[in-house]
């Protein structure tokens, strides 16, 4: 069973405190509600009942209906083993679906591999390189594998891609001497050898240090700002929250939900949080001001506050102060995707890392 996609028009950012700035809204068509996106023709990726059962009988992907709007940065979220990579392999024509259909850039896969894939850059399940070749020669090989790539512009495109991922200095080094982060970047460079309509990135920040992650995310935003649709799979909720405009959540081979990140995060109610040493007093005052579901904690109280008008919050704060509560902190904390995930599936997002 697939839950109905969420709808709504929440536009607020779902980023928690300290989150990196959200990318500017994608330049191409705005997020269409998923109901029409299924019928619309401008989806970069669309699947209908996509299913893969491996020879052992294991059902890796089960009746997937996915719609990735053009121009979106689409987060494909799920725990390890939930079927993300199998889905990506089907979309890229590497494995054949057991049943169902998938279209990429409007053409059926895997039948249209030769016409579709030159317009798609992909990083699948981590980088794979020829250790005995230099980074540059690795890119030359992958570029030579594309029959639509012009050999005359190859050296120049390779150098541009290397520069873009910050590997120019290490271009002549053998790839086996690369660190994992450098390998990841080289993989990304091979996805950027040509201007692409779609970038498929499977766990692009896996194994990177925080600095490397930031750099890769910045690059993803940059590519998205140029109008490339980015399909980003990850098991990291905060990564999706920071980078994506849309998201779909997979769990055990099934699609749990898809929609804009804001819609998904709106599923999780924001809560009012008061930080104070006078917990008992604060609870009394808050209860008197129609704050429900109060949870007193150590030096903090949180609860649900229904009032949404601009005056309500300052008034509530003033009431607390007037009652002698020493207010150290006061505000609404936004829901996160993790809250949404828990709310949607009733289960924790239980993955390592």
């Amino acid at each position, binding site marked *: 069973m697939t839950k109905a996609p969420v709808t709504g028009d929440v536009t607020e950012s779902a980023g928690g405190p300290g989150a990196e700035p959200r990318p500017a809204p994608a330049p191409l068509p705005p997020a269409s509600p998923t109901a029409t996106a299924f019928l619309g023709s401008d989806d970069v990726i669309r699947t209908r009942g996509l299913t893969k059962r491996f020879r052992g009988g294991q059902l890796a992907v089960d009746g997937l209906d996915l719609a990735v709007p053009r121009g979106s940065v689409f987060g494909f979220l799920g725990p390890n083993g939930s079927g993300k990579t199998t889905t990506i392999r089907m979309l890229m*024509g590497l494995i054949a679906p057991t049943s169902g259909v998938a279209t990429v850039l409007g053409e059926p896969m895997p039948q249209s591999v030769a016409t579709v894939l030159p317009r*798609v850059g*992909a990083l699948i399940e981590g980088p794979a390189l020829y250790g005995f070749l230099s980074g540059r020669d690795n890119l030359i090989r992958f570029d030579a*594998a594309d*029959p*639509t790539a012009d050999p*005359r512009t190859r050296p120049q495109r390779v150098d541009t891609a290397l520069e873009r991922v910050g590997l120019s200095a290490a271009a002549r080094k053998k790839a086996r001497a690369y660190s994992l982060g450098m390998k990841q970047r080289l993989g990304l460079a*091979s996805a950027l050898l040509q201007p*692409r309509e779609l970038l498929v990135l499977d766990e692009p920040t896996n194994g990177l240090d925080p600095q490397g992650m930031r750099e890769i995310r910045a690059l993803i935003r940059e590519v998205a700002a140029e109008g490339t649709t980015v399909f980003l799979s990850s098991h990291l909720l905060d990564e999706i929250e920071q980078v994506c405009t849309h998201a779909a959540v997979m769990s055990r081979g099934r699609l749990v939900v898809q929609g804009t990140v804001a819609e998904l995060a709106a599923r999780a109610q924001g809560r009012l949080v008061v930080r104070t040493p006078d917990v008992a007093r604060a609870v009394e005052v808050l209860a008197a001001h129609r704050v429900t579901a109060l949870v007193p904690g150590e030096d903090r109280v949180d609860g649900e506050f229904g009032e949404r008008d601009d005056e309500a919050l300052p008034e509530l704060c003033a009431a607390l102060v007037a009652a002698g509560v020493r207010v150290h902190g006061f505000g609404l904390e936004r829901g996160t995707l993790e809250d949404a995930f828990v709310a949607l599936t009733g289960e924790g997002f239980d993955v390592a890392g």
Partner: protein
Amino acid sequence: MSRAEAAGGTGTAGRTEAVPAVGRRPRTTAGFLALFGNELHLTFRRMRTKVLLGILAVLPVLIGVVVKLNTDGPHEGGGGPSFIAQTTQNGLFLVFTALAVALPVFLPMTVGVVAGDAVAGEAATGTLRYLLVAPAGRTRLLAAKFTAGLVFCLAATAAVAVAALATGAALFPLGEVTLISGDTIGLADALLRAVLVAGVVAASLAGLVAIGLFVSTLTGSGIAAMAATVGLVITVQILDAFPQLDAIRPFLFTHYWLSFSDLLREPMYWDGVLKDLGLQAAYVAVFGSAAWSRFTSRDISA
């Protein structure tokens, strides 16, 4: 070359912006052939290939030295054509001796390594998936691998022949060559025959390249594919040694391998060589098709 020039070349001359456009690009012949060239580059850049060719080149040197040290006593060869006696009289015969020694074991072993690893090795390192999403095209990739395998056969045979010629020239006299049939031909003529023989030997390995490629599409482990291919060569040659198996022996791909010695007669006796080449073509057709049908339908999950 500037990008603007390149854009002009592909028919988007109206574009003033130097950045290449997003969207469909035409397939070009040069683009199509690029993978074949790159595959050769990849094969011969590998240390492994260089080591294999080096071993093949050392073999004739060893044979030459051993023959030189034993020139006192008469030397009888084992099963293959016995060129060794002639070698002492004419260094050119070391080419034929070395090829006859290398063909049953050393040459097929190196070819088995290269062909067996061709697809399986890429699957094992994961580079196969990136080639396929490039998209290399499965048929084109297999064709490039097969071409590189054939070129390796030529290079391997050439390594043996050239090293043998150099060693023979250094250790033994060169001059007019007395053929198996007893006729005598000039050195230039004999050199041409050596080139012809090397070509036939290289072509005799074509069937093995196809077999190796097929095995390579069956597994995700390069080592397993190499071992299986080399093991197959040995098994087939053992089978070929049983007279009881006369019914199948003419269909074993190793059966006519040593027929190249018939080219050292006057006139040249082509019967066995043509049978050999025909058999190789049949093996290429059968195992090439099998490799293609397997590779184009297979799930790439490595």
